């Protein structure tokens, strides 16, 4: 069902947990559907200096949470914003089609975090 990469990120998730310091969080998903993801970012200048997450969900949800931290860390907000569901799935060597829709929330979570960060900065 899952690729080796998915299993690896699920079994050994990177950067899990709420970071001690963060500037914004993006919350996506819905407990009723079984998948909820919080993406935390710490921004330095225009770059994502640190990123962490808390996820309740299936292996796809957890492994995509883990993967996005690897894809986004060190990127500018503009670069990070452009990460798509497909980028994450590709980086994991693919996800079961059914999981593409429902559990691949990390890109949305990151976008929301960036959005929230900008709102906060603008204020």
């Amino acid at each position, binding site marked *: 069902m899952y690729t080796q990469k998915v299993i690896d990120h699920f079994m050994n998730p990177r950067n*899990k947990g709420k970071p001690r310091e963060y500037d914004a969080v993006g919350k996506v998903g819905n*407990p*009723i559907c*079984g998948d909820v993801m919080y993406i935390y970012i710490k921004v330095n200048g225009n770059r994502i200096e640190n990123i962490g997450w*808390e996820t*309740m*969900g299936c292996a796809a949800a957890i492994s995509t949470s883990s993967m996005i931290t690897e894809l986004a860390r060190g990127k500018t907000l503009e670069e990070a914003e452009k990460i798509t569901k497909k980028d994450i799935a590709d980086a994991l060597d693919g996800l079961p089609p059914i*999981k593409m829709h429902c559990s691949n929330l990390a890109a949305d979570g990151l976008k929301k975090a960036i959005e929230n960060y900008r709102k906060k900065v603008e204020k």
Partner: protein
Amino acid sequence: MIYMDHSATTPVDKRVLDFMLPYFGEKYGNASSLHSLGQEAKKAIEEARVKVAKVIHADPSEIYFTSGGTESNNFAIKGVSFADKDKGKHIITTKIEHDCVLNTCKWLEKRGFEVTYLDVDKHGLIDIGDLESSLREDTILVSITHANNEIGTVQDMEEIGKTVKESNAYLHTDAVQSVTKLPVDVKKMRLDMLSISSHKIFGPKGVGCLHIRKGVKLDPLAHGGGHEGGLRSGTENVSGIVGFGEAMKIGEEERPKAMPRLQKLRDKIMDNVLKIDNTWLNGHPQKRLPINANFSFKFIEGESLVLLLDAKGIEASTGSACSSKSLKPSHVLLAIGLKPEEAHGSLRLTLGKDNTEKDADYLLEVLPEVVSELRKMSPFKKDYGEFE
């Protein structure tokens, strides 16, 4: 590997496999053939029929071999509906049936039948008064599972039998999970039909049976060459049928010793797992399959739990949406009143004869760790209210 998913399927018992083996390459006759190879196959099938019938206190002529539990349930429900559509178009079942009952009923609803889905209480039991008041003049069939496959709750079939017998309706029970785990007696339960599946009782996959009481009229699901008294055509799966028969025999013989042992093991698991905070038992505390434990762990999702347990060598299952083809959480857990977010975090452990004390100890060591690990990752620690 510690297999605790026996309600999903079981390994074929070594003795059962040995019993089957000659029927592949040597005694391979078609039971309809006149020649000796065919007659030998026929005899083997009839012997299996006797074994199966004995376990449920039926007559061998009342056993119709099928390809498994799903077919048996479809056959019973559609068979009666097609045959009796002029007598009435009302069917009663419950909200916690297996998908093969529910989806058959839904299909029949689209074809003009009316179906009442009985509620269950928080433990998964139907209310007999409810059943009684749902029975109508035009009710042709009541179909209620003996022991639920997810939460293990066991209905009082004798009471249900008594109630249904006062109506015109036939009574069918899905005994796929209960047979060889609990006593099953078609006479005491006053059943008209009963479904069994071989692969749940250490027999081979792809075979099962429908018991049909003498006198009950139903249309075949599989028309053809007139096998199984004309009610289930298709060249008989001889190796499968003899394996199924032997598995029934062994399962029932060993039940009196096996079940108390497994129940004790299950109770130990139950007592200890329930010590984990924000955890509860699903299903009835006493009226449940001796091999079944079903827990809900708040704040985590079941697929992850099952996969992490798998990585530690423990095989189990969950009612989480992610585990199902429909992407909906278990309708059984919802029917007993769980919120969807609670249903996602369920774990079903179902024991079998090979499970030992050591297995339970290992599980009890691993499971709390895994739950804790997943909870650490989860955004929820107290309740789901924090979510915006």
